């Protein structure tokens, strides 16, 4: 049945009616936040101590922690003359689906190497991995989409570490799309611990190779800085319930930094305080800054969050190169600024539906050749697969 547009239209009108009030509320919160941000803009030590105090009563605190730069800092990158290279990686996956005739999993990892300013054709790399029986059929049951995502994140770093070893160009930037920290639920599972260990090993290899590692998050919805500023309004007895009492829910960091930063500028660097970021310690501790790339489309605001490990965060020269390189990469796509190398890595990695179908047929063919009995797909899926378009007898 088609969507009942008449019914939905009434609900859309209700949302529209409430939208103005909601936006007014957000604007009001944003103005208050800006005042608090200005008030504490140069009180980094105070904020660091405040975070430590709250942590003593609540180790689940998740917020940004300022380093040395002012909260309201706006920094342009200095031009870079030295040649550098960028290695970007992305992954795509096929999740085992119990409704299919044969549940199978694939992780496709793509990487793209470009050397800006050197007039050399970029290179593409691809690794396609069909998951084994042991990986698909786990002790906990069929491998979940969440765990396939975890594996994908790991393989992205693994290919970066592997290719970095083969590349002599320095400096070398190693980029991925998404957060640097391996944020997944079920932190205590064996699967998570195994992949976290591999993830840490890959990052350490990149550090050893002196790579500038970064995760690029487009249109971030995080509120790490907002949560930091909310701490200044809490009473001591409220520390244990931090996160439950919100003063500025709905306001994201983006609303603050979108107005603050001009094109090409980055914000101050912050450390991420969270339970999951505890998994990456010392030199690997995740940090971030907000970044407004050059944008030829004046009608839209584009802001990204760039996550970097501690060893990059404390190196101003590497941070500058990263910011400069990201800006140059985003410029390539004109009115839709996004790092060109990351987009190409995505293009290399992406798995299309027809490819999934082709792989399924090949696996089924192999099993049939081995006289392995094959189940039918679920009747639910079989009926979904029925042709939806209509045919006519005569022209």
């Amino acid at each position, binding site marked *: 049945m088609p969507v009942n547009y008449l019914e939905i239209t009434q609900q859309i009108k209700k949302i529209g009616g409430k939208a103005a009030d909601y936006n007014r509320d957000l604007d009001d919160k944003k103005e208050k936040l800006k005042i608090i941000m200005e008030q504490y803009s140069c009180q980094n030590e105070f904020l660091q101590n405040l975070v430590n105090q709250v942590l003593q009563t609540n180790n689940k605190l998740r917020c940004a922690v300022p380093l040395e730069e002012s909260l309201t800092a706006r920094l342009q990158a200095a031009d870079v003359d030295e040649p550098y290279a960028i290695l970007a990686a992305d992954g795509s996956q096929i999740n085992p689906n119990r409704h299919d005739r044969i549940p199978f999993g694939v992780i496709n990892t793509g990487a793209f190497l*470009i050397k800006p*300013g050197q*007039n050399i*054709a970029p290179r593409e790399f691809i690794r396609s991995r069909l998951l084994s029986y042991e990986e698909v059929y786990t002790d906990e049951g069929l491998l979940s989409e969440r765990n396939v995502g975890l594996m994908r994140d790991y393989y992205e770093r693994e290919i970066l570490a592997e290719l970095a070893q083969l590349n002599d160009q320095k400096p070398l930037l190693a980029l991925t799309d998404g957060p640097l920290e391996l944020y997944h639920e079920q932190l205590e599972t064996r699967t998570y611990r195994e992949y976290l260990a591999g993830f840490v090993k890959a990052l350490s290899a990149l550090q050893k190779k002196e790579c500038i590692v970064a995760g690029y998050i487009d249109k971030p919805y995080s509120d790490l800085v907002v949560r930091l500023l909310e701490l200044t309004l809490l009473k001591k007895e409220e520390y244990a319930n931090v996160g439950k009492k919100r003063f500025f829910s709905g306001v994201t960091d983006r609303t603050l930094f979108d107005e603050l930063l001009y094109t090409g500028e980055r914000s101050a660097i912050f450390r991420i305080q969270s339970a999951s970021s505890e998994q990456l310690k010392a030199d690997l501790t995740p940090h971030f800054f907000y970044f407004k790339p050059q944008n030829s489309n004046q009608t839209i605001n584009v802001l990204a969050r760039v996550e970097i490990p501690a060893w990059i965060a404390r190196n101003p020269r590497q941070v500058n190169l990263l910011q400069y390189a990201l800006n140059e990469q985003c410029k*390539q*796509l*004109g009115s839709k600024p996004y790092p060109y190398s990351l987009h190409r890595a995505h*293009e290399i990695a992406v798995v299309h539906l027809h490819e999934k179908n082709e792989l399924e047929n090949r696996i089924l063919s192999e099993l049939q050749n081995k006289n392995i009995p094959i189940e039918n797909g679920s009747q639910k899926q079989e009926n979904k697969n029925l042709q939806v378009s209509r045919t006519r007898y005569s022209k």
Partner: protein
Amino acid sequence: MSMIEIGRLLRAGTKGCVVGCKITQIDVPALGGMVKIPIDPNKGYQAYGLIHEINIDDDGLVRQLVTSDTVSPEVILDNRLNRNVPVEISVLFVGHSDQGKISHLLPPRPPLTMDMIYTCSQEEICEFSGQKRFGYFRHLLQAKDLPLGEVLAAHLQQAALAHQTCGDKGWPKKAAQELITLLRDDYNTLMNVLSALADTNIEFK
């Protein structure tokens, strides 16, 4: 005799085919150029064709890149060499050869996907186009939706040069006379073709 590969077959039919080639190979094929496709080299069976269209497609990313103020040379190289948007060359079949014997009839069997396509040497052009009759002209004249005047002019220019090298300076005149005869009842097309030929540097002696 060295063969210059210009690409591989994407799709084919009875009357023609489409060839895909990398942007780095684009220097080789030209409009009106004669090409050959070995279909069964063991039996000396190959198809001959004339290039009548060269297409360079875009996609969403290329359309986005062209709107940018600055596109780096590396990004241009990436799109020309790496991304799967080949140059597509449309070829009209004009004949074939079987065990060394040339015929201006269409190839009985079209080539297969991924078959290699080569430019014809001057000797091959002379051999094919120097047959007693210009039978292969009919394939061009019957084809629809191709720039007939331009393709014929480009082909005659290339073939005239080949025949001059092979010692037949009178070939262009014979070819032009045949075209006039074939198009005597189609004034508009004839004028179009003659106009295009007039723009070439062929000497019709």
